[in-house]
């Protein structure tokens, strides 16, 4: 009997013990707030630049004004201890003492007009130029904002973000970690690495002129693509195919194409719609797609191919020389964990490489 009672008691304890923390949390809630949903944060690429611009306007204007009117470098500290250097127009900041020796400053650098940055320096604070900014090679910058253009020399590192209201140029072998945006154009040299970028026009220099179509090609009338075998659905303006799908070179198709495996758009073919391959998608040279290009693995755009809509790949996007993505007035997005782009490609809109973006050397 005692044994049974002990058993019942131990069972009751074992049952109730796990409930003790629960009962405490129920009676005295310590974590009952709703999950944080960020409702106001739009994720716009200019978010940080806009925030920094507001900060400059609110707190740093007096220093910029003084440097502009006096024509001398102004050095000051904000109430929280942040050090500021305001540089007159068309000058470079003058670093002294240990900063000059180490070629490094943690101070915010403000240019009252155009701003020059010397070679091989580290600027750990934000850099702001009321006009344009011209940087030498080998710079390391935390964040850069310019009301005019930004021209950075070779092997420059931008650690957080960069924004130019005009044109932004990153020299050969530069690294643009974080966000890079420009109001007009963004130019990247060979060997650059990037994360997220936006500009109405992004050029991977040197630009390559698309190969001119021969008169015979121009005059040739394209034939409509034939319905593929293994067609699973052919309604509502889309062809859904089990297995691989190939659009023969030189043909056209109006509507969306979806393949459960690989999808190939042959050389010179034209698709007036979007395409998706659940594995790889290849746009052969000179082909054109007027909608989105979506792949479960890789998207490869061969030389001189074009896509108007977004390019989405879950593994890699490779873009060859002479390729064009988007169009003036129709900006779009390229997104994938890894993006490799050859010099000579042209993109209108956004590029977002979640792991690594690279301009081929």
């Amino acid at each position, binding site marked *: 009997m005692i044994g049974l009672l002990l*058993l019942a008691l*131990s*069972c009751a304890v*074992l*049952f109730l*013990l*796990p*409930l003790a*923390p*629960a009962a405490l*949390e*129920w009676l005295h*809630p*310590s*974590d*009952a707030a*709703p*999950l*944080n*949903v*960020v*409702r106001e*944060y*739009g*994720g716009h690429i200019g978010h940080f630049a806009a*925030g920094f611009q*507001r*900060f400059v306007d*609110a707190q740093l204007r007096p220093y910029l004004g003084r440097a502009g009117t006096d024509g001398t470098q102004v050095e000051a500290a*904000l109430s*929280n201890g942040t050090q500021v250097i305001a540089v007159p127009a068309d000058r470079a900041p003058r670093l002294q003492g240990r900063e000059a020796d180490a070629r490094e400053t943690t101070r915010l650098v403000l240019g009252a007009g155009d701003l020059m940055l010397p070679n091989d320096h580290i600027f750990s604070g*934000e850099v702001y130029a009321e006009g344009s900014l011209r940087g030498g090679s080998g710079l390391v910058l935390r964040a850069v904002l310019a009301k005019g253009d930004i021209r950075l020399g070779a092997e420059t590192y931008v650690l957080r973000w960069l924004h130019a209201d005009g044109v932004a140029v990153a020299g050969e072998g530069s690294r643009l970690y974080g966000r890079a945006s420009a109001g007009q154009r963004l130019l990247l040299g060979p060997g650059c690495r990037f994360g*997220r970028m*936006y500009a109405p026009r992004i050029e991977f220099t040197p630009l390559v002129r698309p190969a001119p179509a021969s008169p015979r090609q121009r005059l040739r009338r394209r034939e409509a693509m034939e319905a593929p075998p293994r067609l*699973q*659905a052919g*309604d*509502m303006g*889309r062809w*859904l195919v089990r297995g691989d799908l190939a659009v023969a070179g030189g043909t056209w198709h109006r509507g969306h194409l*979806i393949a*459960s495996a690989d999808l190939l758009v042959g050389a010179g073919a034209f698709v007036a*719609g*979007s*395409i*998706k391959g659940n594995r790889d998608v290849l746009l052969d040279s000179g082909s054109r797609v007027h909608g*989105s290009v*979506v792949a479960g693995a890789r998207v490869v755009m061969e030389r001189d191919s074009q896509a108007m*809509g*977004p390019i*989405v*790949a*879950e593994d890699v996007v490779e873009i060859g020389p002479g390729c064009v993505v988007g169009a003036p007035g129709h900006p*779009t*997005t390229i*997104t994938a964990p890894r993006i490799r782009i050859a010099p000579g490609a042209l993109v209108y*809109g*956004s590029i*977002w490489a*979640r792991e690594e973006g690279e301009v081929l050397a």
Partner: protein
Amino acid sequence: MSPFSFLKRPFLSCLVAGGLLLAAGQLRAAEGEGVGEAPAGGATAEAMGGEVPAPVVPLDVAVRPEPPTYYGDAVPPEAVLRIKPVSEWQPLPPDAGFVSSRLTQISNETAVTALVLLFFVLALIVVYTLRHYYFAFNRLFGRQRHPYVDIDTADWPTVTVFIAAHNEEAVIANSLEALLDVDYPPERIRLMPVNDRSTDRTREIIDSYVVRFPGRITPFHRSGGKPGKSAALKDATELVESDIIIIFDADYVPGKGLIKQLVAPFLDPETGAVMGRVVPLNTGSNLLTRLLDLERSGGYQVDQQARMNLRMVPQYGGTVGGVRRIALEGIGGWRDDALAEDTDLTYRLLLSGWKTVYQNRSECYEEVPESWPVRVRQIMRWAKGHNQAALRYAGRLLFNRGVSFAERMDGLLLLGVYAMSPLLLFGWMLAIFLFYCTTNQWLSGALAMFALMGYGALGNFAAYFEISAAVHLDGNRNRIRLLPLNLFGFLISLLSIARATWNQFFFDWLLRRSLVWDKTVRYRQPGATPVPVHLPAGATPHHQTGSVG
């Protein structure tokens, strides 16, 4: 750490308790063996009042040969797990054989049949358990798929936003204001409150916004017709010409970027529907809302996202989501006879070659039930709708060659989710029945324990692994302490679902009763403070908050 800290984990506790009970069972069995040392025929002697002395059995006979089993000499006693064809079953001799009955009313055939059924239920529990593990581990350690979340620049398609409203005077203004403020090209978005036979001030409030924001809101006031959200959406869809339809319930408060996030997957030509994540707003109201918060976390943060990762069947949820108009037209539009129009739509799209995409980062607040009767009604409605969809689409899904194997299996398991509750209840009854009515305690007792544990830790709704993983992924900490109390929530869900299924099969269908759509109660009062804007600490840089100055 306390030496008993492992007991905070319900699964381990169940194991320990199960071990103790089994030990007790074995002890009892050992005692039983002691009693059973009485020679054969003792039971008869006992029944006769002990007047007949027990016959003396020679030693060699007592030990060898073994007594014949009920299965006969053809089957050796150690092989009695093999079940003979029904035609060969024989009447049960008392207290003999494999799962012999303690009660003379229960034949051995009955016991074996019950055991087979119990094995079947347990097999299903194991399948769902493995599924929960698979999803939770995938979310914790697998590769995560968010292929469309970074699309921020595009030629955005035209969108109509439905705001499903039925007597929503408390919340409709909040929802409209949030939608008027979203980041989407204004010429490409149209708001359409679908006011379904409201009898309160909903119409008046909507019309006041139409006047204040001319050209941005096209109201659809519905005063008659078939009741229910599906029927209302069906009527409203006839007025729509946009490429995409996004749907919110009137108590949802979308953030600025939400519409773009929900529309971006439609740039993939294979996407037929999109689902965002629903986040409970009134979590702190009472225990029920806190438990539902945990359950929702598990459902969205782990279950839905894992399906997305594994290219299975994320489910369109009817709100904070959207559908491509031509896909909707292609599958015949909304079904106004569907009690769960969301599940119905998911499967019709899947069978027609369209994918449903889940966007875990497209979050939106909603209210969850604050009282148990409301919760019970809600889950009973879901259960009936889901069962309806299961009967309609399970067969077609099983034999559809256009759907991948992973999608087929996941789709079938998803359809069976609500059927598991009555099955589990049945399994529980079987386990108890076998426990008390058979003598093969080592097996049936263990099975009974496993069945009970299946309820508590491994069963359909007791997706503790998923909930724990979800809370971890969400970065919350202390709320996980409430996890054991979810057992009670699950138990109520289990009984509610079983009741709904019973009603559905034995009353609604047999008696041809029409299925009734039941709207969930809202808790915000008219004029209540709008939903606050939350910015997590550290989400913005120092110069955003002006802290530098």
